[in-house]
């Protein structure tokens, strides 16, 4: 039995037996201390309102200010409130923000702390653990928590001065004499309907005017779309030693290429990668189809910010083959991986023969020999293979 509670009972019995008025007053005092302490402590979290403000996205090297606002809507003060915010080690050292405060009734308190965006990633800021209690330590300390917020730190982007990829053109779709596909935005004329023509291409206005079926004729075009296939399989990178720096460099390469293609060259770009997604906490295939614009770049960067390496091997080449089926004919495929294995070279050759422009980018900051061997093997097959060993290499790629 709680000693305080037992004491109150004893007080009651003593007061009732002796019938001394003052003892009843003492009994009232302790009973009211017990009751008010409990009610007060219970009300603290009911009246406490919390909000956390921070920029949800940041670039590498940014300093992020997190503001925690606590409002006590109750009339009673909060004698003590322990705040413990759990933070990612990559953003803050030590990985927490702790504070003990005291708040008056109907008051608001603002606390601020800084985070350093030192590594790209998808981070949870919080949860914020709260602890409070009464003045006399009668009630067991009460705990509560405030949900975490998220922060995305984009990967590093290296400005590319020179890019030697076949997509080096400001025009996303070029006309060609080779009939690769018909661009429905480029109408060049009409012809009479022939069996087998798709009804979607019937020119209804001309058909109605002439009384015979006419179909639209489009200009043949070649796609200048780009798709990055990023390999995040730890095992592939581990063959060369330290996988983490290599994977991070691969992500930086993908982000830099995406930034250059979408902002400098204004060409559509897609991203395909298989990795661990901290948001859904499972393996995820990210397939962003080629699009243009800054909004699309931000989407790609968000994926590159949060995607994590895969611990267990998956069939990267199989993924490439499957996704490539849905890409436009003539798309430039950029495969970023550690080295070109025979299977990958086979896949690249198959894609090249299928009409795609394939470029391999070997990322390996440690080993050089094997990458060079891969480069020679790719060159022998007529496939462009570029090497990236450090971030500086990205400035003049190709």
């Amino acid at each position, binding site marked *: 039995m709680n000693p305080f509670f037992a004491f109150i009972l004893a007080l009651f019995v003593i007061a009732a037996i002796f019938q001394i008025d*003052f003892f009843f007053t003492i009994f009232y005092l302790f009973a009211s201390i017990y009751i008010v302490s409990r009610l007060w402590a219970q009300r603290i979290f009911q009246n406490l309102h919390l909000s956390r403000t921070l920029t949800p996205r940041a670039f590498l090297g940014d300093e992020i200010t997190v503001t925690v606002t606590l409002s006590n809507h109750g009339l009673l003060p909060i004698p*003590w409130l322990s705040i413990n915010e759990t933070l990612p080690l990559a953003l803050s050292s030590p990985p927490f923000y702790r504070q*003990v405060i005291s708040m008056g009734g109907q008051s608001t308190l603002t606390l601020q702390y800084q985070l350093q965006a030192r590594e790209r990633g998808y981070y949870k800021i919080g949860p914020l653990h709260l602890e409070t209690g009464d003045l006399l330590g009668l009630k067991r300390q009460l705990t509560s928590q405030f949900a975490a917020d998220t922060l995305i730190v984009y990967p590093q982007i290296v400005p590319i001065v020179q890019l030697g990829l076949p997509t080096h053109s400001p025009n996303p779709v070029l006309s060609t004499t080779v009939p690769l596909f018909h661009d429905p935005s480029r109408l060049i004329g009409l012809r009479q309907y022939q069996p087998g023509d798709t009804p979607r291409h019937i020119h209804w206005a001309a058909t109605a005017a002439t009384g015979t079926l006419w179909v639209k004729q489009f200009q043949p075009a070649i796609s200048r779309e780009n798709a990055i296939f990023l390999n995040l399989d730890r095992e592939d990178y581990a063959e060369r030693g330290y996988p983490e720096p290599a994977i991070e460099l691969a992500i930086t390469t993908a982000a830099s290429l995406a930034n250059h293609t979408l902002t400098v060259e204004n060409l559509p770009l897609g991203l395909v990668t298989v990795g661990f997604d901290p948001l859904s906490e499972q393996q995820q295939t990210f397939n962003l189809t080629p699009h243009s614009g800054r909004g699309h770049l931000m989407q790609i960067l968000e994926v590159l910010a949060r995607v994590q390496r895969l611990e267990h091997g998956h069939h990267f080449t199989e993924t490439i083959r499957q996704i490539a089926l849905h890409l436009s004919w003539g798309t430039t495929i950029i495969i970023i991986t550690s080295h070109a294995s025979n299977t990958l070279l086979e896949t690249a050759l198959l894609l090249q023969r299928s009409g795609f422009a394939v470029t391999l980018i070997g990322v390996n900051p440690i080993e050089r020999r094997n990458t060079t061997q891969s480069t020679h093997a790719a060159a022998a097959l007529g496939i462009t293979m570029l090497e990236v060993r450090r971030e500086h290499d990205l400035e003049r790629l190709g």
Partner: protein
Amino acid sequence: MQYNIMKLIQLDRQQWVSQWLRPLIVITMIMCLNLSLVSLVRAFNPAWSGNTLLAGMLLTTLEALYSRRILISQHHHQDLFYLARYHLVEWGMLIMALKLIQLLSYPTQLLRELQLVWQEPAEAINFEFSMMLTLGLLAWVITRQTLSNFDNLQDPNESGLAMEELSQNFFLGGALILLISGLTQLLLVWQLNYATIQAQIFNLKRPHVEGIILNVLVYFILGLVLLSQVNLTRLLIRWQRQEIEVAPQLISQWIKYSFAFLSVLALFAFMLPTNYTLGFLASAGRVIAFILAIINFILELLLFLITLPILWLLHQLLGTALNADTPMPTPPPSPIDSTAMQTPSFWLELLQSVGFWLVMLIIIFYLVKTYLNDHPELMQLLKSIRLFNLLQNIISRLRQLLRQVWGYGASWRPKKLNLSPLFQAHDVSTHKRNWLGHGDSPRDQILHYYRDLLQQLEHFSYRRRQDHTPYEYEPQLRQAMPEVETEVHALTAAFVQARYSQADFTPDQAASAKQQWQRIRSSAEHEEVTTNEEKNE
């Protein structure tokens, strides 16, 4: 308000607390206890001053403080042999000092006493001296133990236990001082002899004793101050160990809040009625009789008002036919018994008695309710007893009835244009007012159960984010309480249906929602208890 720089609390700043404040409080509290003992003995023997005993107690308490400080400064407190020798010498000196105090307290008989001690050393240990020695040893031990507990507060692993022991000692001492003071008051007020104390204690019809007992008041005030201070120290040490920054104004605000908290409650306690002239049943009987009298008066008044126009009409129409002696109806007599009002203090006494019993009932009800809430296993055991269930049902019916009466009364109040319900349709707290009104439709009941659950779960750290829909919140709950996964899903689905569909609901569905609500609630309580226990471990 914004903190820019928070500095780590240096507990060294509190040296004066451990060096002076706490010892002073401990000494005063022990002396309060001793004073009550002396008062009791003096009630039997008014000729005995008791100053010798008090001086002896003060000496032993001070010696206990001083010797501990010396031991700690000499770093010898781990050496058992040294400690034994040290305390033996200390107690030898203390015995001599106590005897000297006793001898000096009777200066006129000093020579005769010295001669007696010299001739017959055994005579030196008389009753008073034995009492001084026994109580002195007790005070010495209590002081040492209390100081040891204060020291243990500095050890984060021991601080919880130390705090517990300190509170237990305070409560034990409090109960003792009350018992001793109670007996003393009985003896002083009625000048009883020892033989009749027992009879008087259990004579509950004796008059109340009024007035404040100063040493008891000082003991409890100082004890509460000490508890608050010790709690703060314990927390500060814990935060320092965890390297948590503490707001610089926390200590000053702690003192301010403690002072305000204790003062307000003390004022409140002093304002409450402390005695009663009527017993519980008599008070209740008077209240019920008064209520019945009012009801009776209202009925008679109504009857009078109804019959008055009829009789007046009949009198006008058949005035001649009616006997001139036919009496007109008379207004009902006042519900207040005039004989009872003969004494002017009647109402004051009744109010005092009713107030006293009401406060007692509220306190007892709250204490029992809290205790049962804190001990769910006992609650389960009690629920298996039919009588308890019956009592619980009666209480819940009474509460329901009171709520209905309140609601009925509220509906009679003049209506104001109130637009707030339009804006508070989703506010959980607004639904608490008509919580579980059994007159509600099954749909409303389902809505109430779910909303109450949300409100309850806020206390159990499963707070729903404001932007979460019921179905978004459901996985979080299921993950937190996998054992009631089915219930969580069923109640969520029932709520969504009740909230957004036009379907009709049966009482069975409401009953089923109630069962699910109960299971989830008890599971949440169980989870919370387990988590807290793990944390405490």
